[in-house]
């Protein structure tokens, strides 16, 4: 190698040595900008999640209020009216008949008290979620079964993790409410099977009904309505997935899998 070549080589190596650290510094600056964007996106996601959580809480409250309204009007109201009518119709001259009516009124009254207690429990819906998702779902099932139109089979598989996630429980509970609403409004189902499965790092909720079913591909955006869209959106917000299988006349199966806790 000639001296001129050595000189050129040395110049090139020196230039590389001088330029290389500049690239390192530029890389660090670019990476830092990406880190900033990532942090901002994370903060934005957190805000969206919190907003969705508040919305979910409000919807649960709204649904509770609606149920209470219907229950007061259709059930407890009727029971109390009947009690009042029974008591009004008592003729004190006929002691035996009066006694029968008083007993009937007492029975109606006791039934009203029982219904009121159930309503009180419903009012603490959010606390129920805090006590555990299973309990909250069980409570919801109790209301559905009260109508007498549905048979509900509820199974829980796996061990509930020692550390739960109340935010995810709340969102999952709201999804259950949405699915039940859809079944009650549209499916004409008679039986509902619910399976809640705890896995090592996820939770799965499967709801199967034997109702009319639907062709998911044929549904228009409007037909999908807020129900299915909300289920999808809520599951996504907690990093979960929704699988819907249904055929007209063959019922429907909705499965939600979310990372847990």
């Amino acid at each position, binding site marked *: 190698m000639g001296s001129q070549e050595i*000189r050129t080589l*040395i110049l090139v190596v020196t230039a590389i*040595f001088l330029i290389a*650290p500049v690239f*390192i510094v530029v890389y660090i*600056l670019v990476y830092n900008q990406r880190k900033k964007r990532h942090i901002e996106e994370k903060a934005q996601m957190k805000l969206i999640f919190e907003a969705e959580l508040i919305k979910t809480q409000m919807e649960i409250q709204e649904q509770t209020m609606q149920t209470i309204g219907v229950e007061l009007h259709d059930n407890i109201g009727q029971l109390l009216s009947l009690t009042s009518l029974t008591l009004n119709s008592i003729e004190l001259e006929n002691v035996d008949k009066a006694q029968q009516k008083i007993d009937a009124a007492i029975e109606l009254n006791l039934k009203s008290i029982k219904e009121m207690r159930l309503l009180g429990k419903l009012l603490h819906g959010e606390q129920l979620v805090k006590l555990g998702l299973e309990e909250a779902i069980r409570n919801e099932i109790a209301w559905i079964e009260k109508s007498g139109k549905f048979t509900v089979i509820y199974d829980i598989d796996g061990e509930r993790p020692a550390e739960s996630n109340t935010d995810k429980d709340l969102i999952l509970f709201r999804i259950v409410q949405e699915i039940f609403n859809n079944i009650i409004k549209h499916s004409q189902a008679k039986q509902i099977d619910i399976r809640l499965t705890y896995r090592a790092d996820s939770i799965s909720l499967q709801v199967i009904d034997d109702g009319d079913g639907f062709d998911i591909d044929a549904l228009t955006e409007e037909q999908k309505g807020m129900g299915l869209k909300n289920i999808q959106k809520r599951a996504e917000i907690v990093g979960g997935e929704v699988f819907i299988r249904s055929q007209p006349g063959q019922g429907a199966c909705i499965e939600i899998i979310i990372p847990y806790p």
Partner: protein
Amino acid sequence: MLNYLTFNTVSEFFCLTVALICLLKDKELIWRLLIVFLFVTTACETGGIFFATEYHDNQWLYNIFIVFEAAFVLAIFNNLFKKHGGNPLLAALGGVCFAGSYISDLMSHGFFKYSNNTFTIMSVLYVTFALYFFYLLVKSDIYIDLKYSAEFWWATGTLLFYFGTTACNIFDKHLEKILITPTLNLSYFIFAVLDVVLYGFWSYSFICKRWEAKKLEP
């Protein structure tokens, strides 16, 4: 007098002035001590020119300076590592490396010849430390606006300077043969540019430190 006005002395004096304005009231002792270090640097550079002109030998002076340089640079890296969750033992290890190599240099050629091996070894170590500091920044979950980070620009100046000087030191014999002007070689210009880069970045770092302090003022 004009002898004393070189790229090095002017950039060092400029950096010392910025340090005096920005760091004098800084809360961190280590940053305030940088003023002392820059004062020693400027004095050493000026003294170096004086001894070179009058006695044609100034290597012993730089042999003293290299001790100050290692102490201050390692102390600042130690501070940065501590703040950003790095291993604080690394700077101490750097100190051990310096002591070993410096004693070895002095024993091999005495005090009056510059400890070039020590300078090269320490340059590689400073570059490694600066890169390690960058790694800590990248690894951290906390976002720091690096455009205004005093620590980042201090480490950047250090990285660029010692990365460049390592190459120049290795090829010094060849680079000094390439004359740019009848009396000045390429090596001189590269060192001058690296000096300007180092003190330029450090000056900006001190300005950032002042901004940080101002932001924290009530």
